[in-house]
Structures are given as C-alpha cells and as structure tokens.
C-alpha cells in the first residue's frame, strides 16, 4: 500500500511541469542587426521565441558611451521593448542584452545599428566571468551528487533492506549528512546561478539583487521542490521504524528526484511525452544504485557473510532492472539531445557526452565484476572476499563521481539539438546569407544561417527555367576555404519535409571566404554544379 501511494506522487509531480521550451532564441530585432537607418528609431524591440526574464539591456554609442539602459525597458511576454531618447545623433549604436530563458540559461548578445553612417567593425560580446561559470558547474555537480546519495540511500533502505533495523541505524547518518549537504549546496547553487545570470563575479553572492534575480528564474522552482522533498526525508529520519514515517521518507525521496523534471534543457526539450519523465526516472535509477553503495559497503564490513551475501544478491536483482532502465533512458536522452551523430564529434556537448559514456562503460564493467565475481565469493566467505567487494564498491564511487561531474557539465553546455533548432529557425526566418545562381537552365539558391564560424545550417532550393520547384535526387556539397588551405569537405544535404535540402554541421568552423559547391543530381545524367562564395564571420 505504502509503495503504491508513494509511486502515485511521482507522476503527479511531473504533470505539474511547464510546457516544452528550448533555449530562448533571438528571433527578431527592431531595428535589425546591422541596419543603417535614415531616421533615428524611437525604441528598440528584442523579440525572442519564448517569454524571458530581463537581466540587463543597454544601448551604447560605438565608443561605449551609454545612452539608455534597462530602467525604462518593458518585457511583454517574449518581447523586450526599450524606449530610446529622441533625436539620436548620427552614429553607430550597440544594443547589449542579457535575458534568462525558461530553461534557466542566460542568453547574452549584442546587435548593432547605425543612424546615418555605415556600421564599422564587429561587436564584442561581454566575456563570461570564467570563475563564475566553473563554480556553477562544480556547485551543480556537488548538489547533484548529494541529492542522489540522500534520495538513493532511502530507496535502497526500502528496496534492498526493507528498512531493517540495523541498516536503518547505519544508513541514517548517510542520509542525514547527504541530505543536509544537498540543502546547503542547493542554496549555494541558487546564489552562484544568480551570479551567472547577472554576469557578475562570485562577489555578487553578497548582493541581495543577485539572489532576487536567482529567485525569479525557473531554477528556483526545481531547488524549492527538491528542498521540500529533502526536508520530508530528513523529518521522517529519526523514526523510520514506524510505517507512516517510511512512507513520508520515500515520498520525500521521490519528490526530490522529481524536481529534476521541472527545468533544465533536457527535461524541457521536445518530445515532451518522453523527455519530461525520462530525466527524473534516469536520475532515480542512478540514485538507487549510488545510494545502495554505502549500504552494501557497511553490510560487508559488519554483517555475517551469509547475510551480507543475501543483501548483495538482492541489490543485484534490483540493480539489473535499474541499470537497464537507466541505460535505455540515457540512450534516448542522448539521441534527442545530439540529434545528428556527426555532431557527437563536432561539438563540445558531444565530446563531454562521450567522456560520460566511457565512464559509464567502465562503471558497468566494475558492476559486472561485482555481480558475477565478487558477490558469489561472499557466500563461501573466502578470506579476501570482503576486501575485494569493498574495493569494487570504492571503484564504483570514483566512477560515479566522474559521471556526475560530466552530467553537471552537460547541463551547462548548449546541446546540439538547440543549435540545430536555432539555425533551422534562422533559415526559415531569413537566413544571414542567401544567393541564387543559374546553371544549365536550373536556378539554385543557397541559404546559410547564421553565417558565423561554428554551427551552421545550409539550405538548398532549386527551380527550373519556368520557376517551378525541382526536387533533385541528391544534393552534395563541397565546402572549402582556399585561403586557409582547407580542402573540400564533402557533405550531403538531407531532404527536409519542407521540400528543401538542408545540412547541419560544424564544418564552417573558421571565419573567412568559404567556397561552397552545390552538386544537384537531377537524374542519372544531369547534375548542375554551382559555386558560391560565402563570407563567414
């Protein structure tokens, strides 16, 4: 009965989550980036693809003299409107902005426009304070570790040990320490996140405004719910002998884990029917495993061999289900976040994910060793059996630490899925580079977004001499940067549902004048080839 009620709470929590949102993306600005205007504008409008919270917005003359700031800015859903002083003199202006999207990430950028003259040069974005970004990742990793250990220990006590008296006595200390650590680290995480949003160094922790900003972000919700769950667990801890307290403890554990469904770019990604519950369930399986480790280590140290063996076997049985579920969900999450396999090697997110997968592979190897070699040894009580088992558990601790660190890093890096979405949207909205050339009676149009070094989306459209759309059988691209000696990279564009051929990738990794050759195979014997000169900033 207790288990049934406890499991009801989990999905209810998940149902309370937000609708799906990705990283906020700047969709439109008035005036447009790089615009040259005859008359001075009356206001600046920044339109994003989802509602955002404003941190700062400033308008400066190109020589860094400020002329307007966020005090008079208004946020209407997904638009930030900033009125400008009347009659701006002829000059080039920079609009620098910083907002927080629904998945708790700060989006900063700048656009330029000119009144009268042509704009000059490139705009430098504000540099992130490196110490703040690293502290954020570290705090997030420590919080996650503490949360998983605390919640996992309760789950392990429940499933593996059935809240047996001596286990509860030993496990109480683990839960207490990990739970308190999680609460403190959660509060610290809120502050450090606030510094990151505001773009200030860690000294901002002393500033009340930083905390107010952090509380207005979606992250605060996750931490509040996690805090509530942890508090329930800690409250029920002293009297875990009574049945009702056990229910409260397990409920608290599930609530704390469920909080991970509320924010973060994984849980808020599409398809929501999968991602929203896959993230906390993935965490729950990991928590159970991690939380059971101290339990097993203690059992091996103090219990008689047959009992220790029995607990190890019971853990193994549950672990098999937990690990399989965790791996399956992890795979699904990775596929959704990375989207195109090539991006695993081309993006920072992909590299960190590979490190995490390598660590998981090692962890599984140690776990397999534990299950099939170390555990049976316990039954015969061979002399070194306990030592071997304990060492295997310490190895698992170490690998878990690495895995959690990588997971926290992933939470900070923009996943390839978001990059692809951003650039695909830019392609339909009006790409940064578009050009058409005619060859052999066919008109081929190449669009590139955002035409900046890094991830880009390329779209190819084709029409015949009468203007009718032509769908080639295949579209191949050859990308080269002659000035830097980059030989042609051969890529294939995929046929998109919209009818265009689109290629996503990080091939245009450097700024310069790229040569893009489009080979459009119409039929077996006809293949118009068109070359474009594409400037990449």
């Amino acid at each position, binding site marked *: 009965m207790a288990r049934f009620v406890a499991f009801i709470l989990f999905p209810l929590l998940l149902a309370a989550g937000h609708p799906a949102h990705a990283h906020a993306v700047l969709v439109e600005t008035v005036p447009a980036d790089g615009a040259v205007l005859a008359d001075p504008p009356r206001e600046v409008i920044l339109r994003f693809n989802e509602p955002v919270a404003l941190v700062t917005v400033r308008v400066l003359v190109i020589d860094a003299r400020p002329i307007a700031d966020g005090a008079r800015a208004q946020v209407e859903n997904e638009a930030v409107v900033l009125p400008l002083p009347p009659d701006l003199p002829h000059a080039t202006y920079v609009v620098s902005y910083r907002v927080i999207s629904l998945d708790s990430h700060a989006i900063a950028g700048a656009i330029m426009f000119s009144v009268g003259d042509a704009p000059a040069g490139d705009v430098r974005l504000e540099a992130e304070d490196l110490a703040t970004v690293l502290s954020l990742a570290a705090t997030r990793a420590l919080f996650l570790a503490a949360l998983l250990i605390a919640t996992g220990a309760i789950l392990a006590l429940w499933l593996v040990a059935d809240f047996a008296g001596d286990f509860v006595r030993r496990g109480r200390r683990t839960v207490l320490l990990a739970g308190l650590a999680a609460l403190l680290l959660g509060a610290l995480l809120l502050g450090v996140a606030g510094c990151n949003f505001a773009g200030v160094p860690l000294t901002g922790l002393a500033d009340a405004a930083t905390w107010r900003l952090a509380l207005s972000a979606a992250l605060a919700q996750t931490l509040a719910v996690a805090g509530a769950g942890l508090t329930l667990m800690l409250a029920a801890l002293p009297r875990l002998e009574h049945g009702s307290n056990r229910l409260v403890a397990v409920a608290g554990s599930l609530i704390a884990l469920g909080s991970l469904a509320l924010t973060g770019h994984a849980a808020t990604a599409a398809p929501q029917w999968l991602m929203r519950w896959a993230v906390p369930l993935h965490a729950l399986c990991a928590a159970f495993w991690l939380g059971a480790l101290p339990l097993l280590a203690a059992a091996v140290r103090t219990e008689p061999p047959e009992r220790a063996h029995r607990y190890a076997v019971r853990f193994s049985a549950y672990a098999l289900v937990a690990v399989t579920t965790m791996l399956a969900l992890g795979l699904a999450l990775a596929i959704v976040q990375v989207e195109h396999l090539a991006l695993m090697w081309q993006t920072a997110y992909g590299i960190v994910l590979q490190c995490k997968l390598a660590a998981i592979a090692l962890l599984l190897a140690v776990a397999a060793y534990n299950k099939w070699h170390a555990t049976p040894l316990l039954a015969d009580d061979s002399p070194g059996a306990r030592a071997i088992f304990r060492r295997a558990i310490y190895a698992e601790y170490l690998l878990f630490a690495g895995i959690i660190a990588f997971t926290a890093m992933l939470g900070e890096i923009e996943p390839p899925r978001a990059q692809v979405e951003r650039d695909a949207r830019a392609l339909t909205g009006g790409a940064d580079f578009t050009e058409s050339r005619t*060859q*052999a009676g066919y008109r081929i149009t190449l669009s590139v977004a955002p035409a900046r070094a890094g991830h880009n989306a390329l779209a190819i459209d084709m029409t015949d001499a009468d203007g009718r759309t032509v769908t080639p059988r295949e579209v191949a691209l050859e990308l080269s940067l002659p000035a830097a000696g980059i030989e042609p990279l051969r890529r294939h564009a995929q046929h998109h549902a919209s009818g265009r051929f689109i290629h996503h990738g990080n091939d245009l990794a450097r700024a310069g004048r790229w040569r893009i050759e489009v080979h459009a195979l119409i039929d*077996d*014997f*006809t*293949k118009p*080839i068109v070359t474009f000169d594409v400037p990449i900033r």
Partner: protein
Amino acid sequence: MRIPDGVLGVKPQPKHGWELAIQKEKLKTPIVDSHGRTITEAVVEVTWTGKLLDENFDQFGMHMKLPNKPGETLYFPTVQECERGVHRWIEIPAAGKSRSDYKEPAPFLKLLPKAQRH
C-alpha cells in the same frame, strides 16, 4: 551512356560476356537521312552490363553518325555502376571553365571542321 541530341544511327558494339541494352525514344520531328529514309526514333541510352576487374581495362565501341556542326562539343554523360558505389561522369563544364576543374567530367567529342584536302 546517354547519347546527345543530333547523334544518329547509333550502333553499339556487343561484347562477349556482357549484356547490351539499347533504349530508344521517338524523335520530336522525324528526320530524312542521306539515303532518303525517314527516321522516327533514335537511340538515347546504351547500357553495357558485365564484370570488369579493377586491375583490367576494356574498350566499349559505338558506331554513330555525328551532326554537321563544326566547332560544337558533344557530351556523352556516362554512369559507371561498380560493385561498391556509383561514379557519374556527367559533369559538364560551365561557361569559362574547363574539364580539369571538375572531378567527374563527362566524356566528350569536339567536332572540327572538315579537313581541307590539297
């Protein structure tokens, strides 16, 4: 291999151990040839199917009547389907470019004016 417009009377050479397939199409306007016969259809595609090892080479022959257009270049786009992969020798140079600018240019014939006899 695709036969360009204007090339008539195409007769491919059969090869021992190879299958030969000829595809014809009706001409838009029938042509009267030098013998006075009316020609209503022409060969547009010739396919040889067989096995040729990479370490060998072979020759594939065709008889054809070339059009009377001195100075013109006729392209014969050819698709080579191998055990692994397809090579399409079908790239036709754009204005101002030469064959050496392309990776898989189409085989071609440049028609020269009739030689003057002394």
